[in-house]
């Protein structure tokens, strides 16, 4: 007869389990007795008294003591091994205790783990976002609300409350910001410098900051306001606070404002505050007449590219510059060569955009030279596509529109919808040119060129089989510091014949020049 014991650390089983466990051990070959009890002093003494334990072992009340008596040492050893394996198998959860910090799962917990934080990014389903934002503000944090589907009824009191407490609410639906050099949401890795940006448009902000980087400038802060901010009801609260913050910031030498044209009352307040900032201000109210904005201290511009260029010029101590809106010289021959490849039926541009502001800017620029441009988000409602899944004449589609993103990721991430549409457009004998935007940066697809190229090649094949060639024109919004790397993405797209320009505006103008067959 032999007996032995084993201690299993910090293991708790309910009484029924322990009873069943002991019975299983007793049923093993060569085992006569088995017991599993908490290793308390009294239990150890009881086991000794019962003859199951040869000697007193040190008590350890939080551990489980297994004692086995059997025919020989080998059966007892095997039984104990099996016992331990059974317990550990059932107890994958057994841990060694110790206190670790729980990963923050509320704003309050996050603040507790980082008491110096002064900023919270809210990205929840829209119905919860306002409540979470209010919690953050009440904890003394500035807020970026990435979530959309937050109503203006919720937005207005939130922004008013934050303003009363000298805090900033970026958003709702603020997809992009760069604060103290940290890209937030969909944002690019941009050189730091002396240009401060406040923008009501996500991709607009990405375009101007990326172009500032491309043109050799850098930014201090890029503040997003959300799309509703400059409506009369909201009153441009965030835009005005942003201008105030950049005015007070000694690192910011130039202020750049980007938005669709605000409500007239809001525009007046914004321009007044910009004028009073004492700093040169560049303003692109996309679609507004620059002349109506320009003053001694304010440079009004027509495009995002011009906004970036003017800001960099001012930052470098130059004049803001003259912006003619003409196609740059280097594209004139390109346009002629492309136009020569088109047959008589190939008349139309098909713009397929992932960035809403890129689509909007394109609609404005194309309509200046080509007239009516149909869209799911047209400038004039009468030019809205009846069937958004089918283009007609000149068409520019914002694939980031809610209509296309329900139940699927944003087209900056998921290219399937755009790729399908590229093939559809290529199959249309009236398509002359497919115009694209490609957005790099955090949050976007890690290899947009890799996603697009198979569709572009397939589209070229479809057109070639029909005896045509389709022109691809586009621009890549991003920087070499972005995870996708601007130069690499551009090189890959050029390799398959995509004609790339520096900016969205240039791409639109080049496209117009190609289908017009003139420059």
């Amino acid at each position, binding site marked *: 007869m032999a007996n032995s014991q084993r201690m299993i650390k910090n293991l708790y089983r*309910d*009484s*029924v389990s322990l009873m069943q466990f002991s019975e299983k051990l007793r049923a093993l070959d060569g085992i006569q007795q088995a017991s599993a009890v*908490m290793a308390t002093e*009294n*239990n150890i003494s*009881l086991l000794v008294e019962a003859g199951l334990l040869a000697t007193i072992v040190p008590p350890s009340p939080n551990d489980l003591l297994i004692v086995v008596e059997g025919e020989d040492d080998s059966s007892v050893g095997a039984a104990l091994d099996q016992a331990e394996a059974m317990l550990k198998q059932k107890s994958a959860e*057994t*841990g060694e205790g110790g206190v670790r910090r729980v990963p923050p799962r509320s704003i*309050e917990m996050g603040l507790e783990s980082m008491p110096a934080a002064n900023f919270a990014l809210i990205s929840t389903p829209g119905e919860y976002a306002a409540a979470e934002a209010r919690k953050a503000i009440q904890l003394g944090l500035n807020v970026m609300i990435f979530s959309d589907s937050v109503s203006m009824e919720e937005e207005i009191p939130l922004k008013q409350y934050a303003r009363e407490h000298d805090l900033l609410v970026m958003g709702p639906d603020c997809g992009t910001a760069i604060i103290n050099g940290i890209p937030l949401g969909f944002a690019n890795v941009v050189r730091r410098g002396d240009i401060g940006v406040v923008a009501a448009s996500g991709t607009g902000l990405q375009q101007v900051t990326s172009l500032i980087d491309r043109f050799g400038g850098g930014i201090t802060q890029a503040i997003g306001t959300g799309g509703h901010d400059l409506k009369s009801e909201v009153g441009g609260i965030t835009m005005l606070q942003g201008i105030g913050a950049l005015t007070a910031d000694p690192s910011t030498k130039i202020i750049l404002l980007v938005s669709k044209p605000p409500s007239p009352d809001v525009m007046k307040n914004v321009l007044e505050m910009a004028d009073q900032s004492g700093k040169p201000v560049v303003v692109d109210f996309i679609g507004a007449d620059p002349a109506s904005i320009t003053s001694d201290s304010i440079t009004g511009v027509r495009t995002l590219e011009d906004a970036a260029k003017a800001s960099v010029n001012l930052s470098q101590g130059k004049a803001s510059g003259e912006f003619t809106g003409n196609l740059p010289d280097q594209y004139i021959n390109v346009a002629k060569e492309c136009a020569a490849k088109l047959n008589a039926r190939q008349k139309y541009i098909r713009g397929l955009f992932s960035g809403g502001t890129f689509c909007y800017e394109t609609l404005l620029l194309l309509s200046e030279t080509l007239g009516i441009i149909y869209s799911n988000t047209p400038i004039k409602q009468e030019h809205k596509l009846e069937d958004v899944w089918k283009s007609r004449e000149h068409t520019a589609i914002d694939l980031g529109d809610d209509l296309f993103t329900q139940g699927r990721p944003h087209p900056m991430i998921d290219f399937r919808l755009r790729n399908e549409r590229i093939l559809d457009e290529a199959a249309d004998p009236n398509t002359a040119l497919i115009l694209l935007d490609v957005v790099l940066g955090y949050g976007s697809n890690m290899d947009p060129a890799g996603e697009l190229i198979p569709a572009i090649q397939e589209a070229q094949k479809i057109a070639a089989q029909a005896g045509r060639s389709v022109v691809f024109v586009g621009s890549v919004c991003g920087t070499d510091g972005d995870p996708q790397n601007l130069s690499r993405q551009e090189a890959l797209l050029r390799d398959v014949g995509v004609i790339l320009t520096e900016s969205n505006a240039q791409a639109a103008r080049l496209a117009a020049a190609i289908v017009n067959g003139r420059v």
Partner: protein
Amino acid sequence: MQIQAASIGEAIPRDNFDAVIHNVFDTAANLCLVDKNRLITLLVSDQNELPQGIRITQRTASLQSLTVGLVAACRAGVLRFESSPLTVDLRSAPVWECHISELNVDMKSASSVQSWSRVWQMLNSRQKLSKAEIVADDLFQRNAGSLLSQKISRPVLQLISSTGQFEIEKSIEAAGKMIGLGPGVTPAGDDLLIGFLAGLWSISGKFQGRRSFIHSLGIRLMGVAEQTNLISRTYLYHAVHGQFSSSLTNLAQAIALGSENLQDMADAAMRVGHSSGMDSVTGLLIGLCIRNTELSPA
């Protein structure tokens, strides 16, 4: 998955707290409060309350996503767990309080004596039927029953005697021989002691002598309680403060009032665990019978 707590026990902290998941059973998980060395229990039950319990209902919850050793944190009344989708909202949960010390059970009243006798019979029948290691009757007979029964019998008798005499040292000596003794995650000796304290609190009424004795006994008992595991120690901690499970409290109340639902209450109390419930009821019934030599209402 955020679920609403059905109730919380009076010993659950009302402020923010941090805890480590100590152990997870099918219907209960114990969380060790950081810096307090005692547990609170997340309990899946449609009715049973614990002073240290956060009760969630059978219909809403599973505890299987909780992992021993990971952390939990309660902030602004919402309890969250590391690496688990489970979140428990405590904010509007009613607070359950144990009022056993206000029962003032009078064991001279005929109805209470009758109720006590019925429960004693039920208890012994059930213990014998389930082949429990401790059978209440055996504790009062020489060398009867299992080795455990025999081993625990002597300290139980000593405890009855010394408690009746308000003798702290002898009571603690007896309790020390019971603590941590027996099978189960809460050893039988601990369950019996917890029940015994429930009995003492039930009859303490306004008798200052009994209350002082329980208070002094409790302080010393917590020193001896180091001999058992943390789960048991937590129950003992609450017991010395007059806080018990609803099942034990309800049974004590049913005995006090001679209630019609005595059998249901007794069943519910005895059903807890494999033998824990029966051991606690054994202790309760013994504790209710303590006769003190000197009683002076405060």
